C-alpha cells in the first residue's frame, strides 16, 4: 500500500478506504496532524496537561498531574474510601458501615483492581470483578414508568444485578459459574487465532426460581482513568458525532443513549457504563455503591434488594449509608485519575500502526481526539486536548457480542465505544485484565476479532492484513 505524505490543507470528503486508495497524511501548521481523514496523535500527552508518566502497575492510580495541592489531598481521601473495605452495620467504623446484606464486593478496589479493569473469574473461583445485570422482558406501554427511569425491567425478586456475596447470616443470591467454549478464527493468511466465548450458568439460586425469561448482561469493571475528562467533553460535541440513520452512508450509525438523571429528574444524554446508561460519574458511582456493595446514598436511596429478599432485617449503616461528604470524595477521586502518557511514539512500527488504525476505519467510532469544555470548578479538566479514542456513542456490535438486553435506548446488540486510552497498560495494571464488556478477549487481537455489526468491515480489514500490518496495529494500541 502506498502512503502519500502531504503537507498543507487537504480536505477529505469521503470515508476512508482501506485497499487500493492513496491515503494522505496532513500535518497542520499548528502541530496537529491528520491521516486518512482522522486525527493522528502527535503528542504523548493523551490526557492533556494532567497526563502522567507512569507505565507500571500504578499506571492508572495517579491523580491528574495538574491538580492543585489541596485537591490532591481530596484525591488521597477519596482514594482511601475507594480502597478500604466497607463493613457490616452496626460497627465502630461508622463512616464505612452498611455493607450489603447482598453485594458483589466490599470495596471499590475489589472490582476496579488497581483502578484498572476487572477480569472474568478463573476456573472454580468466585466472580468478583465481573457480574451479571439482570432483567425480564418488558411491555413498552405497561412498563413505561420503570423504563423511563430505570431503562429496563429488573427481575421481580433478584433485581437488576446478580449479587453473589452476602453478609454472614444472609444468603447470596446465587453462584455465578463461568465456562468457556473455544472457537478458531482463521485470518486471510491462514493464521489461526483461538477465541473463547463465555457461557454463564447461575447455580444455587437462593431466592426462588429465576424463571425462563431471565435476561442477563455480563459486565466487567472498566478502568477508572480519565473519567473526569470524558465527562468534560461538551454534550454538543458528542451529539454532533451521532449519525443514527447513517446519513453519511459509512455503515456506522452511532447514537446517543438517552437516560434518566436522578438529580434533575429528567431524561438526558447517557455517557458512562458499557451501554452509556449513566449521565455522569457521580450517578455511576452511586449506582455502584448501591448495586455492587449494597450501600445507599442520598442520590440512590435504595440498594438492589427487592422486598421479598427481606434486607430490612439487617441493620443499615445510617441514612444514607454513604454520607454526602464521602460520596463527594469518592466521586472526586473517580473523576481525577490521570491518563498515562503514550509510549514508543517514535517507533516506525507504532507510527505505521497509527496510520493503519485510521485507514482501517477503527477511528470512525474510536474517535481520537476532543477538546474539553470549561468547568470553573475543575481547571485541571478544562480546555484540555485529550485522546480517548471513543465517540461515547452506541453501536451495533453484532450478534456475537450481543447481550440481548435493552438499557434505555441501547438495544441488545448495542454497546458504547470503549475508550482506548491506557489500553496498552491494562495488563500491566492487572495481569488478568480482559477486554470487551465481559473481559472475554485475552489480547487486543482477540478483541478486534470479536468486533461485528457496524464494526464488521473494520475487523474484516484486520483479517485481511499481512502479519506485519497486524503487528503494527497492535503495537500502536499497546502504545496507548
Amino acid at each position, binding site marked *: 500500500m502506498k502512503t502519500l505524505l502531504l503537507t498543507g490543507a487537504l480536505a477529505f470528503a469521503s470515508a476512508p478506504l482501506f485497499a487500493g486508495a492513496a491515503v494522505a497524511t496532513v500535518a497542520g501548521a499548528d502541530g496537529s496532524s491528520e491521516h486518512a481523514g482522522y486525527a493522528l496523535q502527535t503528542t504523548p500527552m493523551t490526557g492533556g496537561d494532567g497526563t502522567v*508518566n507512569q507505565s*507500571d*502497575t500504578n499506571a492508572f492510580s495517579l491523580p491528574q498531574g495538574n491538580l492543585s*495541592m489541596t485537591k490532591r489531598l481530596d484525591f488521597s481521601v477519596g482514594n482511601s474510601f475507594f480502597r478500604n473495605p466497607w463493613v457490616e452495620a452496626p460497627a465502630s467504623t461508622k463512616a464505612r458501615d452498611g455493607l450489603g446484606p447482598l453485594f458483589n464486593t466490599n470495596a471499590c478496589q475489589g472490582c476496579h483492581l488497581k483502578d484498572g479493569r476487572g477480569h472474568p473469574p478463573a476456573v472454580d473461583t468466585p466472580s468478583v470483578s465481573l457480574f451479571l445485570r439482570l432483567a425480564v422482558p418488558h411491555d413498552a406501554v405497561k412498563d413505561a414508568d420503570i423504563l423511563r427511569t430505570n431503562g429496563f425491567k429488573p427481575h421481580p425478586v433478584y433485581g437488576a444485578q446478580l449479587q453473589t456475596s452476602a453478609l454472614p447470616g444472609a444468603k447470596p443470591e446465587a453462584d455465578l459459574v463461568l465456562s468457556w467454549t473455544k472457537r478458531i478464527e482463521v485470518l486471510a493468511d491462514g493464521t489461526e487465532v483461538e477465541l473463547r466465548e463465555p457461557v454463564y450458568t447461575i447455580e444455587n439460586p437462593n431466592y426462588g426460581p429465576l424463571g425462563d425469561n431471565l435476561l442477563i448482561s455480563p459486565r466487567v469493571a472498566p478502568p477508572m482513568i480519565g473519567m473526569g475528562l470524558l465527562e468534560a467533553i461538551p454534550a454538543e460535541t458528542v451529539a454532533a458525532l451521532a449519525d443514527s440513520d447513517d446519513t453519511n452512508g459509512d455503515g456506522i450509525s452511532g447514537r446517543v443513549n438517552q437516560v434518566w438523571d436522578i438529580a434533575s429528574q429528567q431524561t438526558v444524554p447517557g455517557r458512562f457504563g458499557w451501554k452509556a446508561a449513566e449521565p455522569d460519574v457521580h450517578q455511576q458511582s452511586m449506582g455502584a455503591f448501591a448495586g455492587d456493595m449494597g450501600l445507599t446514598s442520598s442520590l440512590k436511596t435504595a440498594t438492589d434488594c427487592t422486598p421479598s429478599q427481606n434486607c430490612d432485617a439487617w441493620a443499615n449503616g445510617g441514612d444514607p449509608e454513604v454520607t454526602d461528604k464521602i460520596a463527594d470524595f469518592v466521586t472526586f477521586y473517580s473523576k481525577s485519575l490521570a491518563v498515562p502518557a503514550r509510549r514508543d511514539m517514535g517507533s516506525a512500527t507504532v507510527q505505521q500502526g497509527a496510520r493503519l488504525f485510521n485507514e482501517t476505519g477503527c477511528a470512525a467510532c474510536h474517535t481520537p481526539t476532543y477538546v474539553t469544555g470549561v468547568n470553573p470548578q475543575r481547571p485541571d479538566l478544562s480546555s484540555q486536548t485529550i485522546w480517548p479514542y471513543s465517540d461515547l456513542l452506541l453501536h451495533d456490535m453484532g450478534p456475537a457480542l450481543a447481550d440481548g438486553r435493552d438499557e434505555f435506548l441501547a438495544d441488545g446488540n448495542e454497546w458504547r465505544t470503549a475508550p482506548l486510552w491506557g489500553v496498552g497498560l491494562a495488563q500491566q495494571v492487572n495481569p488478568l485484565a480482559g477486554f470487551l464488556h465481559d473481559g472475554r478477549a485475552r489480547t487486543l487481537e482477540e478483541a478486534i476479532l470479536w468486533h461485528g455489526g457496524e464494526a464488521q468491515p473494520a475487523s474484516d480489514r484486520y483479517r485481511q492484513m499481512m502479519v506485519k500490518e497486524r503487528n503494527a496495529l497492535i503495537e500502536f494500541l499497546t502504545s496507548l
Partner: protein
Amino acid sequence: MPFLFRPAPMAIAVAALLVAGCGTNGSVAKNQPADQKIDNSAVVAHYADVAHATFEDALITARTLNAATDRLIANPTEANLQTAKEAWYAARVPYQQSEVFRFGNTLVDDWEGQVNAWPLDEGLIDYVESDGYQYELGNAGATANIIASNSINVGGEQLDVSTLTAELLADLNEIGGSEANVASGYHAIEFLLWGQDLNGFSAGSGERPVSDYQQGTDCTNGNCNRRADYLDAVTDLLIDDLEWMTAQWAEGSSDNYRAQLTSADASEGVQKMLFGMGSLSLGELAGERMKVALEANSFEDEHDCFSDNTHNSHYYNGQGIQNVYTGTYRRVDNSVVTGPSLADLVEQTNPQLNAELNKQLNESMQALGLIKAKAESSQAPMAFDMMIAPGNGEGAKIVNNAIMALVVQTGSIEQAARELGIEALSPDDAGHSF
C-alpha cells in the same frame, strides 16, 4: 520462606553497623569541603547518613524494648509492664522519623510491612472482645488466635504454629492474602502490651492486665506461656529486621542499599528525597492518617490505636520530613547529625524559597506539636481518637490546622523540586503517590 520481605542484597556485614554506636558522630558535618558549592551527591550521601542514624536509633531503642519485654516475661509485674510500655513509646520516636525514608525508597517500603504494618486484625494474634472487634470481611485469619492454637487454618492452609519463632511470625504476615493479617512489628507488640482499646472516642487506651503474662494459676485469658513466647519472638524479629535495615544504610559496604543509592545519578537521589518528603507530608500523613480519620470520624482509622500514641506517630512523621530537608537529625542520645542538605541546595539558587519552606516546616511542626501537647496535657487530655470524634469542633480544628500546614509545605516541596531541576515528583517505583 522466612523473612519474606527482604529483598536482595542479603549478604550484609551486620557486624559493621554496630561499631558506630551512638554519640560518636554528634554535630559532624562531613562529605563536603567547607569552601565549595554543595552538590547533589554530597546531599544524597548525607541523606544516607541521616537514614542510617535514624534506623540505628530505632534499633537501639528496640533493643531497650526487647530487654524490657524479656524482664516482663521473666517477672510479670505492673512495674515491668509499665517499663515495657515506656520502652515501646521511646522506640516509636526514631522509627516514626524513619518513615520518610520509606517513601521513595522501594527497599524500605517493601521491608516495612513486616515491621510497621497497620491496620491489623489483631484476633489473628490473641484473644479479642467479640463485641468490640471488627475485622476484614472474609478474612479467616482475623479470628485465628495464634496464641491459643498449635495449628491454624487460614484460607485452606493448615499451619503448625506450635513453636513460636521469629521466622514463623515473619512467615505468617499476610497469610491467606489479607494485608490485615499482621503477625509482627510494632503494632503487634503494641497489641501484646496494651490489648484492645475498647474505649471508642472516650479517654483511655487498651487495658491488658499484666496477669496475661503470669504463669500457672495466676494466668488470665489463657495461654500465658504462649503469649510470652509470642512477645519474645516478635521483639526478636523486630531487632533482626532493624539490624538488617540499618546495615542497608551503613557506610563502607559495597553491596548494600546505600552503595546503590550513592553510586546512582545523584539527581535521582535528590528526587527520592523530595518525593519521600512530599508523599509522607501530603498523601500519607495529611491525607490517609489525618484527613481520612477526621472525615470518617473513625477511630478505626487511628494509627497507634491500642496505645493511643497516634499524636506522637504523627508528630515524629513530621519531624522526619523536616530532618530530610534540613539534613539535621537529633539522635536519641541528643547528639546532632548535620551535613549538606536540600536546604543548602535550595539556598544556593533561591534563598527566598528556602526561607519560606523552612518557615512552613516549622509551622507544621508547631501544628503537629499542638496535637501532641493536647493529647499529653495533664489537664483534660484529648487523644487523637477523641479529636476526630463527631461534633468535636475544637479537636477537628486542631487536626485541620496540621493538615493545612502539611498541604502548604508540600506545595513548597514541589517548588523546591522544580527549583532543583526535577520536573515531576512522580514516583519511580515505590508504589506511593501524592
